[in-house]
């Protein structure tokens, strides 16, 4: 379980997160929605320790993340980045097995490669792509490799940052299905941030909406359609009129 309490973050005079409280149960798939610049990515980066919050506490399974050593803490997470963020200088299998080739989880090279090929297979890629470099892959294939890397060390929590951005609708559907099946198969907790409502409906158990750094609403995916919250209704139906102004 991930618990976030009173999380605040400012950049200069701009308050990006304002007292965010959020709970994600173990094995749950939470999707955080909200417009651009509402603090979704910063929230994710605060949980991962990539950005230091100004105030508040984040607990993983009851333990404040500040009490864990950084390596132990990060070993429990996997992340799929918006642009996949694959390392250009490494081959596909070396990207997937990155964590297994160095550090405390280090395995023999042959074993790491075998695990990488297995994870690639899990995301629908054959062993023939293992020795290619990221620049030789399409956007959809890069996302799959990024997903394989995120799950390579069997993490407890997986983050997805705009997983379908830049993909055609069919490939977006494939990625959504993969996320759904992999997360439930692994029993992992998933936190996804996205604007894509088809992604939300495909992968979410629960949904939280951030607007201007404030958590406006949280509920399960069925409640999202019936809530009277005007921010949620405007966002999910993509209306220009409403409390959310288009010009930010």
């Amino acid at each position: 379980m991930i618990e976030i309490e009173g999380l605040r973050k400012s950049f200069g005079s701009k308050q990006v997160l304002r007292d965010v409280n959020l709970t994600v149960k173990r094995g749950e798939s939470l999707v955080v929605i909200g417009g651009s610049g509402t603090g979704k990515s910063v929230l994710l980066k605060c949980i991962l320790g990539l950005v230091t919050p100004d105030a508040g506490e984040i607990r993983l399974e009851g333990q404040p993340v500040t009490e864990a050593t950084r390596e132990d803490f990060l070993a429990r997470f996997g992340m799929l980045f918006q642009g996949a963020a694959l390392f250009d200088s490494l081959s596909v299998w070396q990207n997937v097995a990155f964590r297994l080739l160095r550090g405390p989880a280090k395995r023999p090279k042959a074993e790491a490669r075998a695990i990488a090929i297995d994870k690639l297979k899990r995301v629908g890629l054959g062993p023939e792509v293992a020795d290619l470099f990221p620049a030789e892959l399409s956007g959809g294939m890069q996302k799959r490799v990024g997903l394989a890397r995120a799950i390579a060390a069997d993490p407890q929590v997986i983050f997805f940052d705009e997983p379908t951005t830049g993909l055609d609708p069919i490939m977006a559907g494939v990625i959504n299905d993969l996320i759904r099946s992999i997360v439930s198969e692994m029993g992992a907790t998933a936190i996804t941030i996205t604007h894509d409502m088809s992604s939300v409906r495909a992968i979410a158990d629960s949904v939280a909406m951030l607007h201007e750094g404030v958590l406006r609403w949280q509920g399960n995916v069925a409640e999202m359609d019936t809530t009277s919250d005007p921010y949620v209704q405007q966002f999910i139906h993509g209306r220009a009129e409403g409390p959310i102004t288009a010009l930010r």
Partner: protein
Amino acid sequence: MIERGLASLGRVVLDGLAGAGRVALYALTVVSHLLRPPFYGREFLHALMQIGWLSLPVVGMTALFTGAALALQIYAGGARFSAESVVPSITAIGMVRELGPVLGGLMVAARVASSIAAEIGTMKVTEQIDALVTLSTDPLKYLAAPRVLAATLSVPLLVGIGDVIGIMGGWLVGTGRLGFNSATYIKNTWEYLEFWDVGSGLVKGAAFGFIVALMGCFYGMNSGRGAQGVGAATKSAVVAASILILAANYTLTEVFFSA
């Protein structure tokens, strides 16, 4: 008016000091990573190849033409007071003490600081640095430490090879154009060259290598967003490395050779 001018000047000075402090802290952190495991041998070897081996042609060509031009200049200057015979020794001393390390360092700065800053800056804007962190890997240890170590070790070697090539450039011009006897030229080169002439140049090379890689990594990691941010980081890395090389050269010359 004067008050505003002084305030602006004060801001510039304070910003400059803060920047120097950030670079110093960054340098200390990188050095501390060099002393603590884990060590990334593969990344070190890759950096050694990129920084050392692949810089050899540009450093060699620079040294060759510099040594040749230096021999011509010393001959022309020496002829004014009938001291043409000093060409071999002054060319050699000039190359190994000053021109070899400084021009070699500047050429490596142009080639390496820019490529390191552009590579790491691009990694930053494409979230590869964040990805490293989430994969339990310290970007300073994985990206900066191997590059800084590789540059610190390989630039002195480049300078040494450049010294030899530069002296050869002088010899080519001396024997081919200025009428020196080959054996006399070589004898005069060796006779007046002392160990510390060469050693000081190699120490300078190590310092310049450290500066080049450090500036490339520092500006790359602090790159702004987008293509413009990476471009600005690249430019800043080369400018800062070049100026620091010239400043360090003066300081080291004072330390090594002031009476």
